[in-house]
């Protein structure tokens, strides 16, 4: 033992233990005053007895007015919604939310996603169909589904542009158009927004009914996410809709219906809702709208410029077989099991869909 106490490893061990101990003591030093404070409670309580409870004049009145002790409504000879409330505190919260959170972060979100997409395109370019087109067509969207999609898309963009003008116009357009000019623009946008709003809700519900069947998440979608949709990890399998498309679908459904319902609450202010309800609805409306607009940039990019062969699925209703094999192989297998669904591209019948459009008695989806 004696020889072991002075070996190099023994000395090292001692140094380490000593350092750790001294470190702990140094760290514990600031805690000492807290210990005194805890022990000193008795001392403080003795002192408090000598103080007199001194309140400001009419403190109870102003606490009630300020609603610090819960919601206290007075009465008024003016009978309208919220007329008995002297001070509405949600007003200031809403003002700060709209001007300090919604306006700047909404702008950052939209600009950020747009910038990311542009960068992505510049770096990766257009994703072409590997191996080129095969010339065979596979029907993908029925006429009803395409009509519903473009109806939703058109109404969405009308609402998005008018809504963005109402949110950002004060900062961007008043310098350009002047106060009166922008007032006319804003009045026009408000009327358009209010008229097309309920139409958007109906359109989203129509899309829900038409497309929900193939949009439920399955196990194969987890694998799709794990491989980043094929960006890293090579080929990923997908059914009729891949996991990214399903995510977009559910985003549109959830945020779209939230937009519709909050929009209806905002538009029909005559149902007795107070300012709190209106401010909350506006909050949901604004957040949902900006998220949906931002992610729609990605949807539009992928549907048009980003991937070759995608846009025709929504314009003509059919896609190239090679595109289907590459991006939705499980769906391609499903469709080609029944050999009638492949239609050869025939120059006279406009991408071949005419055969399934006219010959069958029912074009409904």
């Amino acid at each position, binding site marked *: 033992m004696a020889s072991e106490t002075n070996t190099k490893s023994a000395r090292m061990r001692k140094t380490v233990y000593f350092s750790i101990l001294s470190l702990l003591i140094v760290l514990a030093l600031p805690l000492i005053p807290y210990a005194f404070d805890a022990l000193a409670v008795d001392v403080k309580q003795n002192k408090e007895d000598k103080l007199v409870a001194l309140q400001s004049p009419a403190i109870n009145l102003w606490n009630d007015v300020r609603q610090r002790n819960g919601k206290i409504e007075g009465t008024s000879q003016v009978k309208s919604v919220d007329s008995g409330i002297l001070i509405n505190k949600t007003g200031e919260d809403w003002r700060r939310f709209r001007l300090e959170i919604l306006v700047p972060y909404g702008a950052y979100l939209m600009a950020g996603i747009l910038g990311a997409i542009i960068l992505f395109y510049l770096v990766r370019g257009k994703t072409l169909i590997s191996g080129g087109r095969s010339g065979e067509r596979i029907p993908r969207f029925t006429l009803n589904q395409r009509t519903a999609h473009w109806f939703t898309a058109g109404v969405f963009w009308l609402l998005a542009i008018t809504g963005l003008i109402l949110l950002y116009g004060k900062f961007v357009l008043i310098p350009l158009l002047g106060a009166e000019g922008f007032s006319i623009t804003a*009045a026009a946008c408000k009327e358009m927004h209010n008229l097309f709003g309920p139409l958007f809700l109906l359109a989203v519900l129509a899309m829900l009914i038409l497309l929900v069947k193939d949009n439920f998440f399955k196990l194969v979608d987890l694998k799709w996410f794990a491989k980043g949709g094929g960006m890293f990890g090579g080929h990923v399998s997908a059914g009729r809709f891949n996991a990214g498309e399903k995510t977009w679908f559910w985003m549109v459904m959830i945020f779209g219906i939230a937009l519709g319902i909050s929009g209806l609450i905002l538009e029909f202010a005559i149902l007795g809702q107070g300012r709190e309800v209106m401010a909350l609805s506006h909050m949901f409306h604004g957040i949902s709208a900006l998220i949906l607009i931002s992610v729609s940039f990605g949807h539009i990019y992928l549907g048009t410029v980003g991937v070759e062969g995608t846009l025709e699925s929504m314009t003509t209703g059919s896609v190239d077989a090679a595109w289907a094999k590459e991006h939705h192989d499980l769906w391609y297998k499903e469709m080609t099991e029944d050999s009638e669904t492949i239609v050869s591209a025939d120059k006279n019948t406009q991408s071949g869909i005419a055969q399934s459009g006219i010959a069958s008695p029912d*074009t409904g989806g």
Partner: protein
Amino acid sequence: MLEQLVDGIFWDIALVVFFAGIAWRIVDVIRRPGRNDLAESRNSGISGAIMANIRGFFPRREISPRIRIHVIAGYMFHLGLFILLILAAPHVKFIEEHITGFGWTAMPYGVFVITAMISFAGLILLWIHRLLNPVSQLISRRGDHVATTLVFFVMLTGCMALAESSTGLRLFHRFTVELLMIYFPFSALMHAIMFVPSRAYTGSLFGRRGVKL
């Protein structure tokens, strides 16, 4: 100055072109020689004409499923449009001031907006259908697309002016209406008037044709 143009000379030009153009087209149709049918007529031509006009409003059962969207969206748009034109408060006021000198009770504001929504939905659905359906793509000409766009803009400018708070927006709506009126007699929009004589001619032809049992 713009107000004087839109409310003044341009409105007069639009009125003249509209009525003169329609009159010219109708006269042109009436002028054409009809076919001499020497066979004994089955029913009177007039009853055939009237029946054809009425039957034209209801699609044939055999093709109903395929033209469902046309019928539903079509009625949404057309009925909505007529109700808007005749019963919307700003239109009633306009007709009273500029055309007839007397007015009538307008519909309530909420009903006005709902009718406008239905009409818009019908128009947009039909427009998308015209662009997507392969048959419609083949038979649509430039005039059809121009007409749809113009009607849409007339309705859109009307929607923008709903608040009735600015003369500028109201003038914009009047201006698009005047453009539509000038375009109307030379376009497919003439179907609004021509469908009556067209159905009447076919109806009377088939009303007379055949053997009385």
